[in-house]
């Protein structure tokens, strides 16, 4: 337990210095401002304002960025002398993984808070009450955890620190840009429609949007929960397997 705390604090003080925590704040703020200022007046989002519409995808994207840095960190822990030395210590092989995941959650909370604060200035409101707000946070964190576990498994597997986050750049862009997070499905070409509608980022952002507004469908919530649970299970078992292989 104390090893877990020590390793997590080590990552925290490291990332305060290499500016990852700063990036955790700046990324959602920058993306929110970028999307809102560039697209706010161009996209017809129906009944709701663009800040209210776009905040969920900004948060989801921040979680994906977090996953990319996790991949780097996992690769570094695997390949660097530091990571090798950890494996010669009398601590469980799972502790470094657990420390990376704990850091991911902390980073996710910070990024979420930064996104919500800046969006609030532009008129975003959580009108669904406390229950919806709690659910909103839980879904964001579950999604963050799931993608971080996936990225961690990838980073632990891949051969070099340089390439692990690059590999995730394209999927991240595709999932965010081709989602209903930025624009409604009708704005996309018809042949892209099904992908845009059903891919996880769209599903999660729509549920988050509903929770912020205070009206969600049981089906929407069920689909989002299913995505999160499935991704957690699949990526989680992969990440654990990678540690055992080490």
């Amino acid at each position: 337990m104390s090893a877990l705390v020590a390793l997590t604090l080590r990552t925290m003080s490291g990332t305060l210095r290499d500016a990852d925590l700063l990036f955790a704040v700046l990324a959602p703020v920058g993306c929110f401002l970028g999307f809102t200022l560039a697209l706010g007046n161009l996209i017809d989002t129906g009944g709701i304002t663009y800040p209210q519409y776009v905040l969920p995808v900004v948060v989801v994207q921040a979680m994906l960025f977090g996953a990319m840095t996790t991949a780097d960190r996992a690769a570094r822990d695997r390949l660097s002398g530091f990571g090798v030395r950890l494996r010669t210590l009398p601590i469980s092989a799972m502790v470094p993984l657990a420390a990376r995941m704990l850091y991911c959650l902390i980073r996710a909370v910070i990024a979420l808070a930064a996104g919500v604060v800046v969006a609030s200035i532009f008129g975003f409101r959580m009108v669904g009450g406390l229950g919806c707000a709690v659910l909103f946070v839980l879904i964001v964190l579950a999604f963050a955890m799931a993608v971080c576990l996936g990225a961690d498994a990838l980073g632990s597997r891949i051969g070099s620190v340089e390439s692990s986050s690059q590999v995730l750049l394209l999927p991240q862009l595709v999932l965010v840009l081709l989602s209903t997070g930025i624009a409604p499905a009708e704005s996309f070409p018809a042949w892209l429609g099904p992908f845009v509608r059903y891919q996880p980022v769209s599903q999660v952002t729509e549920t988050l949007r509903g929770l912020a507004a205070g009206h969600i469908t049981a089906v929407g919530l069920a689909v989002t929960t299913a995505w999160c649970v499935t991704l957690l299970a699949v990526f989680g078992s992969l990440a654990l397997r990678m540690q055992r292989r080490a």
Partner: protein
Amino acid sequence: MPDAAIECRDLAKSFGKASSALQGVSFTVPRASVCALLGHNGAGKTTTINILSTLLRPTAGSATVAGFDVVRQSGEVRACIGVTGQYAALDELLTGRENLTLFGKLRGLRHRHARRRADELIERFDMGHAADRRVSTYSGGMRRRIDIAVALVVPPRVLFLDEPTTGLDPRSRRDVWDLVSALRHQDVTVLLTTQYLEEADVLSDSIIVLDSGRIVASGTADDLKCRVGVSYCQVTPADPVHLSAIAMALADFAGADCDALIDQQAAAVSVPAPDGVVTFGEVFRRLDGLGIELVDISLRRPSLDEAFLSLTSPAVTV
């Protein structure tokens, strides 16, 4: 702890079908002694260290460290070893002091105890001036020093040093040598790997020479030198015109052609001296009788380099 700090029996490791890194390596390192694994790149030194420090599982054979089996009791082994790899294993974003404190806590010390231990080591390793700078700003020598200090945060019973001085300048190398020598008096058993014969000679009580995954020789530095061949006596006249006269006078020592004794480049005559000083005295008496002026007459033993080269196959140059 048993008398043998490290014991390997028929240790073998292969990576895939084609390459075998170790092929039946057996050796014992007595407690509180320093043992050097000597060999070229690819000889199997690091593989041996990795198996003993529980990073790799052997394909065959067994090994114990501090009496614990490295496969079945890996947790117990980890609790009593310190490891420094070929590359400094530190968090570059943290300061030297923070690294020491972190590894203290990872080894189970409480925060305050870990801080105090870090202070002690910084003082002992004379790192006060650099302790609060990030490791990324350190020179190679300082990195090494803090890296070894980290391995000593909780005093290990067995310390593995994989090429502790590779890439260091001569002065930093001396510093590391002093550190390792000091450990000998603290009941720490050290297994180090090196490509430098001088280092093995200076630091270790025993040397194991590895070549292509096998032990080709082991013993003390003196043992190894003896194994390679006998000493020889070298005579250098003031004027090289006398070389053949000297060679003629000493020919019966070699039982060979006079010319073969003459080393034109060194302008000297060398004869085997199997009986050491006795031979030397005989050579001296004969030459004295000749009345030739000499600048040097010396008894030479083969250098460790000659020993090493004759024991191992040529290094593979990549």
